[in-house]
């Protein structure tokens, strides 16, 4: 069973969203990091980029494969976690803390209603 914090919202494509006012912090779930296996390289979106929900916006690479990460909600990228550039394995160790990916200024907070609750996401990954 993977860890699914109850204070977050989730996308069915395995990203989590932590909302603070009009800012959203985004990362990938514990289940996702476990499925991807040890990450060796992470490509984050550029600051200032306008993302639309569903856009592929980051790439995570494990030893074996490259996978796209999708924007769970729309908005402008305002900060990225540059520490992942040298320590991509942080995402495996602490996916909900130091392993966050980027922050966006929410363009349409209503989109948050389309995300999954922790319970619904848990049902998706643990069945």
């Amino acid at each position, binding site marked *: 069973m993977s860890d699914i914090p109850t204070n977050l919202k989730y996308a069915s494509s395995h990203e989590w969203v932590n909302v603070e006012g009009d800012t959203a912090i985004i990362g990938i779930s514990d289940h996702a990091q476990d499925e991807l*296996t*040890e990450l*060796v*390289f992470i*490509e984050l979106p550029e600051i200032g980029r306008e993302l639309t929900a569903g856009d592929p916006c980051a*790439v995570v*690479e*494990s*030893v*074996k*494969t*490259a996978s796209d990460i999708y924007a769970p909600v729309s908005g402008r990228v305002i900060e990225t976690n540059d520490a992942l550039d040298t320590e991509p394995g942080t995402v495996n160790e602490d996916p909900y803390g130091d392993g966050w990916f980027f922050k966006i200024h929410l363009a349409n907070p209503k989109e948050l209603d389309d995300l999954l609750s922790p319970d619904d996401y848990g049902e998706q990954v643990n069945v």
Partner: protein
Amino acid sequence: MEKNGLKRTALFETHTALDARMVQFSGWEMPLLYSGIAQEHRSVREAAGLFDISHMGEFQFDGPDALEFLNHILSNDLAKLEPDSGQYSLLCQDNGGVIDDLYAYRLGQDRYLLIVNASRLEVDWMWIKAQCNSNSKSLQLEMTNRSGELSALALQGPKAAEIIAGVFPAAVELQKNQIAELDFSGATTWVSRTGYTGEDGFELVVPNERVVSLWKQFMSLGPALGLMPAGLGARDTLRTEAGYSLYGHELTAETTPIEASLGWAVALDKPDFIGRETLAAQKQNGVSRRCIGFKMTSKSAPPREHYKIFAADGTGREIGEVTSGMQSPSLGCGIGLGYVESAHAKSGTDIEIEIRNRRFLAQVVKRPIFRKLD
């Protein structure tokens, strides 16, 4: 055993009990990893790893005509083999295209064993039978596909000899590429000093009903010496660092051993064999493209299969394609194998790899791509 159309080795329950992540591979359900690819990779480089390679195929050939027949269908020269030893070889079509790469062992005067890729097993067997049937004279030869009744393990790494000594004391005496028929609780077991990781190690072929017990023996002796079970993920990163080809990637029916830089496994000095004419011409006249090993020299995402390769000589011309690419756990940078125009195949040549529409500098390197410091 077969489930949902996928074959399972006799060690399937052993893998799931170890919480392995299973993947589909060539029609088999095989362990991709147990604890993690990079960790398993390092254990093979620094101590030892145990792999289930039961999906691979075993063909046995008996009879006075076995040598002549096999030497006609294989690229390397079996006649040069001492009894009880093996060599890397290729099965080629008339046009030199590779059907499979394999290990050929001489077990006795008139007995030979081929160990072939799981992904090519059926194609190989049909091809070999067809060659036998089309032979004009009636051969004194018995061919047996023993893949269904035999399992195999690879015990690889600098501690492999110390670990195998606890089960097969005689195996320690084997020199590289030698094979011995040893007894494991009453069952005939072939133990060879071979492998595909670039490390010292052994490969063991045992009857299906004994493989679980053999695995358990190694896993009871080995962990004190750093032995870990290792999956297909680590097997792939280890062989790529060693610069070894994998069928379906570096080798296909559209590539020849000369293009694949495997000319050392093509014995043009032996009597006629299938593919000889093309391979001899290619060796003499040269080939337009060659398989290379490369290392990323700029910081980049890891290279991957099918990424394009460009010249770094100012022309920016597309010169080839990556056939295997990954982050090297030993080197901490991107490495790969691929085909480039021959003019760019010399080690030390700068090349560029296109990764998501951007080009990154890399360099052609000698194989093995990763070599341990003495």
